[in-house]
C-alpha cells in the first residue's frame, strides 16, 4: 500500500505541486468556513428567533424571514411580569467572579506544589483531585441542600460561591499544573542564583509567564460557574437566583415561549461571549501552552 510519488514531486517545487497545495489550502478554507457556519447556525437562529413574534417563532420549519418584532426582548426586560433581569445578572456576576477569584488563588499555589516543586506523592494528589469529579453532581445535591439549610445559607450567593469553587478547583489545578510545567526550570534557577525569594519568583516570574494559562483557566471557571443551573436552581429562591434560573422562568408548558427564551438565552450568553472575545489572544496562547493542546 505504499504510495510511490512521481519523481517530479520529490524535492522539487513544480507549478503542478504548487497548484495542488494551493487547491488543498482552498478546500481546507472552504471546509473551515462550512464547519464555522454550521457551528454558528444555531446561534444565528437563536438571535433571529428572538426578533420574531411567538407565533412565527413556533412555526415548523422555522420562518427565518418573518417580520421582526421586539416582543421577545420586551418580555425579557419584564414587559409581561414587571420583573427586571438585572438582579439575576448581578447575582451571576458575583458568584462567577467570586468563585473564579478564589479558585485561582487556591489552585495556582496548589499547581506550583504539584509541578515546579512537586510534593511527595504528587501523582496521588492529582488523582485525588480527579476523583472529586467522578461523583455525578446530582448525587451531591440533596446533602448540600440540607447542609446549606442547617447553616442558613440557602438563597445566598455565598453557598453558590462555595459550591462553584469546589466544583472548579480540580479542573483549575490540572490546567494550571500543565501551564506551570511549561516554565523552563533554568529561568527559576537563574532567579534563585540572583537571590530571588519564593514570593519574588512566584509574583514576578511564575505569574507573568503563566498569565495566558491563568487567563484560560479563569475563563473556563467563569464559564462553568456562569452557566451552572442545577445547584443554582435548587439552592436559591428569590434573593440569590442567577441568570440561568431567570432564563428557565420563560419556559412554560402552557403557551408559546420560543421568542422570549431565545432573547433571554442570547442575553444570558452575551457576558460569556464578551469574556471569550476579550480574552481571545490569551486564551489561544494559553490553550496552546499546556497539555490541552
Amino acid at each position, binding site marked *: 500500500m505504499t504510495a510511490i510519488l512521481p519523481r517530479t514531486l520529490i524535492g522539487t517545487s513544480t507549478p503542478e505541486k504548487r497548484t495542488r497545495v494551493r487547491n488543498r489550502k482552498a478546500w481546507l478554507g472552504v471546509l473551515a468556513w462550512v464547519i464555522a457556519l454550521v457551528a454558528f447556525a444555531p446561534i444565528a437562529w437563536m438571535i433571529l428567533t428572538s426578533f420574531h413574534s411567538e*407565533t412565527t417563532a413556533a412555526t415548523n420549519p422555522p420562518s427565518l424571514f418573518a417580520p421582526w418584532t421586539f416582543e421577545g426582548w420586551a418580555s425579557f426586560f419584564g414587559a409581561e411580569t414587571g420583573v427586571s433581569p438585572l438582579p439575576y445578572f448581578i447575582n451571576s456576576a458575583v458568584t462567577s467572579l467570586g468563585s473564579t477569584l478564589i479558585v485561582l488563588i487556591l489552585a495556582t499555589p496548589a499547581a506550583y506544589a504539584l509541578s515546579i516543586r512537586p510534593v511527595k506523592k504528587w501523582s496521588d494528589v492529582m488523582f485525588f483531585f480527579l476523583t472529586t469529579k467522578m461523583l455525578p453532581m446530582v448525587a451531591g445535591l440533596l446533602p448540600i441542600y440540607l447542609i446549606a439549610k442547617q447553616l442558613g445559607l440557602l438563597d445566598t*450567593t455565598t453557598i453558590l460561591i462555595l459550591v462553584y469553587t469546589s466544583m472548579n478547583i480540580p479542573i483549575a489545578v490540572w490546567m494550571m499544573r500543565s501551564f506551570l510545567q511549561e516554565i523552563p526550570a533554568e529561568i527559576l534557577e537563574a532567579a534563585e542564583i540572583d537571590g530571588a525569594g519564593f514570593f519574588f519568583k512566584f509574583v514576578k516570574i511564575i505569574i507573568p509567564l503563566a498569565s495566558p494559562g491563568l487567563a484560560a483557566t479563569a475563563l473556563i471557571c467563569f464559564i462553568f460557574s456562569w452557566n451552572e443551573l442545577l445547584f443554582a436552581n435548587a439552592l436559591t429562591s428569590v434573593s440569590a437566583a442567577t441568570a440561568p434560573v431567570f432564563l428557565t422562568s420563560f419556559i*412554560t408548558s402552557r403557551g408559546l415561549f420560543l421568542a422570549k427564551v431565545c432573547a433571554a438565552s442570547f442575553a444570558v450568553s452575551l457576558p460569556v461571549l464578551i469574556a471569550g472575545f476579550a480574552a481571545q489572544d490569551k486564551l489561544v496562547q494559553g490553550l496552546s501552552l499546556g497539555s490541552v493542546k
Partner: protein
Amino acid sequence: MKKRSRIITASVAVMSVSLALSACSGAAGGSNGGNNQSINVLMVNNPQMADLQKLTDDNFTKDTGIKVNYTSLPENDARAKISTEFSAQAGQYDVASISAYEVPSFAANGWLSPLDSIASSSDFNQGDVFPSLTQALTVNGSLYAEPFYGESSFLMYRKDIFAAKGLTMPSNPTWQQVADLAAQVDGAEPDMKGICLRGQAGWGQVFAPLTTVVNTFGGTWFDKDWNAGVNSPEFEAATQFYVDLVKAHGEAGAAQAGFTECLTNMTQGKVAMWYDATSAAGSLEASDSPVAGKMGYVAAPVDKTKSSGWLWSWAWGIQKASKNQDAAQKFIEWASSSKYENLVGTQLGWSQVPAGKRSSTYDNADYTKASSAFFQQTKDAILSADPTNPGLQPRPAPGIQFVAIPEFADMATQVSQGVSAAIAGQQTVQQALSDGQAVAQAVGDKYKK
C-alpha cells in the same frame, strides 16, 4: 515557615472577604425576615401566573403593604422544587402553587397549613367555589389549598372546516365518532391532520388525555384493592385506540407533542380537532389568534361513561414552616378572589380571567360575552367531572387523569415512555402495557397491606 503561614493567612483573608461580601449581596429579591412585610411565592410558569405577577405590585402590595417575591418555573422544575422545599420544610417559600395531586400527601405529612379561616371568611365566599374543587383540596375535613384557576378537558374543533366538509360535530361525541370525523377532515386543507392528541412522554403529558380515554373505555390504573389494571383488556383497548388514532390521523411528530405543540398546530391550521384542557380556549380565542371565532367546543368524547373530562386546578397552599402565615393568607384571599378575577378582566381583558373555579364568574356578563364560544362547555365539563368516581369501578384513591398517590408521577412517566414509543412506532402497545403492569403492580403492592 513564616512565609508559608503568610501565604495561608493571605488566602484565608481573601476568601473571607469574598464570602462576606457575597453574603451581603443577593440582589434578585427581598428578604422575608424581620419586620419586612414580604412573602415568597413559588409557582408554575403558566400565563395566568404571569398576569398575577404583573398585577401584584400596583394592587395587592399597594393595598396591603405586603411585597410579593415570585419565582416562576417550568412545571416539572416547579414540582421538583416544591417537593424538595416542602419535604425539608425549608421555609424559603411561604406560598406555592400546588394541585389536587399534591394536596393529599402534603397535608398528610403535615407540610401545609390549613386554610379554614379563609374558607369561613364571608368576603372570600367559599360557597362560590365549585364544590368538586373544594372537595379535591380538602383532607380530613380541613381545606389545605385555594384554587387559582380550574379546568377540565373538552374537544375543540374547526367549525369552518367541518362546515366546508358538510360535517356535524355532536355535542356529546363518542370516541368512535371522533375517530370517524378525524378520518374525514384529515387533509381538508394542505398539511392539515385530523386531530391533535398529546403523545409526549410524561404523566402530565400523554397520560393526562389518555387516562380519561382509559376511564371511559372501562379501564383503570388500580381497582379498589390496589390491583394494577394496566394490561387489562379495557386499558389496552383504550390505549390501542388512542395510539391508532394519533398514528393514522394525528399531528406530525406526535410522539413529541404536548400541550404547547398542539396549541401551535391548532392556531396554525395544521389540525382540525384537538382534545385537551378547557383553558386552551382562552389562547385560541385571543385577539391575535388566527383561529379566533372559527372554533367550536364540545364535551370530552366518551365510550362507556356519561362524561370523561378531567378535573385540574392550580391552587395556593401555605408551607407549614412559613414565618409569614398571616401575610400568606392575605395573598391567597386576594389571588383566589372574585375581586382579582374582575381586576384581570378590566385591566388585561376578560378572556384572560383565571376562570374555572367560581360560579359567579359564569354569571358575569363581561366574562360570558368575551368567552361566549366556550364558557358554558367549560362550566359543564368542570361540574360533570367526578374525581372520586371517574370510571366504571370504585377507585382506591381520588383523581381522574391521575391517581392521587405520590408514586403516580414516576410510575405513569415510566409507562408513558412505552406508550410514546408505541406512537413513534418503536414498540407495540401490548409490550408497553405489559412492562407498565409490572411497574404499576409494584406500586400497588405497597398499598395492599
